[in-house]
């Protein structure tokens, strides 16, 4: 059911930017929100707003039902076995930091290894850097193939019996690469390590099944999948979460408070300090309904199609270099590139003058930029509301950009 009608659900797309109809190609940074999500947030604040798990009044019950109802939607969306395994947090970064600070501190000792890859986003590098420094552990990087994919041989070479944590992104926000998470998880488990998945770019685009992947932790954000900003999820296997200590204390996570000691609520609330992100969860629930209605399989197919169409058309432009896998089936709807000597910022500014929004910079993946031997790149990322005409506009914009700078560079 991906057709032109979908665009009409996104009011923000119906506007002109710098005198041209907007073409939004920066969904990997954040996706736009459909009316269904905007309405759900509006309705919640207009009719149901109250704190959860506290009041005995009607609105309190309603808000609690909606908040916990959203948790059940998330559980189904990622096929977790129980809602106890679904923790609402601010986003992927917070979720990965929770794993590092809680599970990591308790289980990683001096000389132990933490294994990540060169393609990780800063959010999946720095929490482990910090943990390694604090615990005297060793942070190891899995190298990449020249096309920006990961081979299982390299994973096997990096993961040893000293490895306590393997953490890897499911889909690269720069290369679009889809990583073999299930196989990597198996390797991690053979060595007794836990597998952490940064699912920020995967959850919006692929059908997620945490039981099938068998990963131990899976983190993602709502705002990249049509939901609001400020809400995200940490999935964790129940046994692991049960044995972990919270890192934030007060509010929703409290069970009993004495003068010198206190106890926490059970899962998943023990990790949800303060007043939780209630409207955010409601909005995420609405986003999940929206995505389910389209079908995650449909979305994945659409993205491959967009990537293939874009790569074909962009390869026609002389001097344009695309990074990452050449096979569109091996990548999500993300195309990262450079055009001749035009700096990506200059390129993005020129495209912006034609109403085309792309990302330029290091995409919070500085080690990967180093690996690619460039300081910055431009990135076009596609989602359900993009179609071929958007890519045609991009290609036309790139041709004009090239022409504009032709006597300069």
């Amino acid at each position, binding site marked *: 059911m991906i057709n032109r009608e979908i665009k009409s659900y996104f009011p923000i797309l119906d506007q002109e930017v710098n005198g041209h109809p907007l073409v939004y190609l920066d969904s990997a940074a954040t996706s736009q929100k459909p009316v269904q999500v905007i309405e759900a947030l509006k309705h919640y604040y207009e009719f149901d707003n109250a704190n959860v798990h506290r009041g005995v009044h009607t609105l309190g019950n309603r808000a609690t039902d909606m908040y916990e109802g959203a948790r059940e939607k998330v559980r189904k969306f990622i096929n977790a076995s129980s809602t106890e395994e679904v923790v609402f947090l601010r986003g992927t970064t917070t979720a990965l930091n929770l794993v590092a600070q809680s599970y990591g501190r308790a289980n990683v000792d001096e000389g132990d290894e933490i294994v990540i890859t060169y393609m990780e986003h800063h959010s999946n590098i720095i929490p482990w850097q910090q943990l390694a420094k604090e615990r005297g552990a060793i942070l190891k990087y899995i190298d990449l193939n020249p096309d920006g994919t990961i081979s299982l041989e390299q994973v096997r070479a990096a993961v040893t019996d000293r490895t306590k944590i393997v953490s890897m992104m499911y889909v690269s926000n720069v290369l679009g690469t889809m990583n073999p998470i299930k196989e990597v998880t198996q390797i991690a488990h053979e060595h007794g390590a836990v597998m952490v998945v940064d699912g920020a770019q995967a959850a919006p685009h692929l059908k997620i099944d945490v039981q099938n992947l068998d990963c131990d932790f899976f983190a993602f954000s709502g705002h990249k999948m049509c939901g609001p900003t400020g809400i995200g999820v940490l999935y964790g296997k129940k046994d692991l979460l049960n044995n972990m200590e919270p890192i934030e204390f007060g509010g929703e996570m409290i069970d009993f408070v004495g003068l010198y000691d206190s106890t926490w609520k059970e899962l998943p609330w023990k990790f949800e300090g303060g007043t939780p992100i209630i409207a955010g969860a409601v909005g995420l629930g609405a986003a999940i309904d929206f995505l389910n209605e389209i079908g995650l399989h449909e979305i994945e197919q659409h993205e491959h199609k967009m990537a293939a169409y874009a790569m074909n058309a962009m390869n026609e432009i002389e001097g344009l270099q695309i990074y990452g896998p050449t096979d569109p089936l091996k990548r999500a709807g993300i195309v990262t590139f450079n055009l001749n000597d035009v700096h990506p910022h200059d390129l993005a*500014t*020129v495209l912006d003058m034609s109403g085309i929004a792309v990302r330029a910079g290091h995409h919070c993946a500085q080690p990967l930029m180093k690996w690619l031997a460039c300081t*910055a790149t431009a990135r076009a990322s596609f989602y359900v509301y993009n179609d071929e005409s958007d890519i045609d506009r991009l290609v036309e914009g790139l041709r004009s950009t090239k022409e504009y700078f032709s006597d300069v560079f």
Partner: protein
Amino acid sequence: MSSKNLDQLYRQVIMDHYKTPRNKGTLDANSVNIEMNNPTCGDRIQLTLQVEEGIVKDAKFDGEGCSISMASASMMTQAVKGKDVDTALQLSHIFSDMMLGKEYDDTIDLGDIEALQGVSQFPARIKCATLAWKAMEKGVQSDSKS
């Protein structure tokens, strides 16, 4: 494409400084060395200044970034060379006002720098233009303290 707006940004003189940067390189180890970057986009500049008796005797820059950031660095080094520290800081102040679209002191001849005025119409790019100037401010101030 609204090339009229773009032409305001990418003036020929800016492109000329980008293509053939003035004062590219590094000064010897006795000079003031300042490294700055723009963490949101990865632009990076290394500025070396030779400051003697309150005068910026020489200035060189190295780094990588977009045309605006590199052209601005080239123009800045050109503008502050031979000036006393106070005048250099005054220029930086004028430049900052110009970027923010404020009225600025026009008693000093800005030379090529004036070409960067168009950047003020592109808020997302102001940081690119000011990077080298911030480095210069830091450099001359750290030198006067020592």
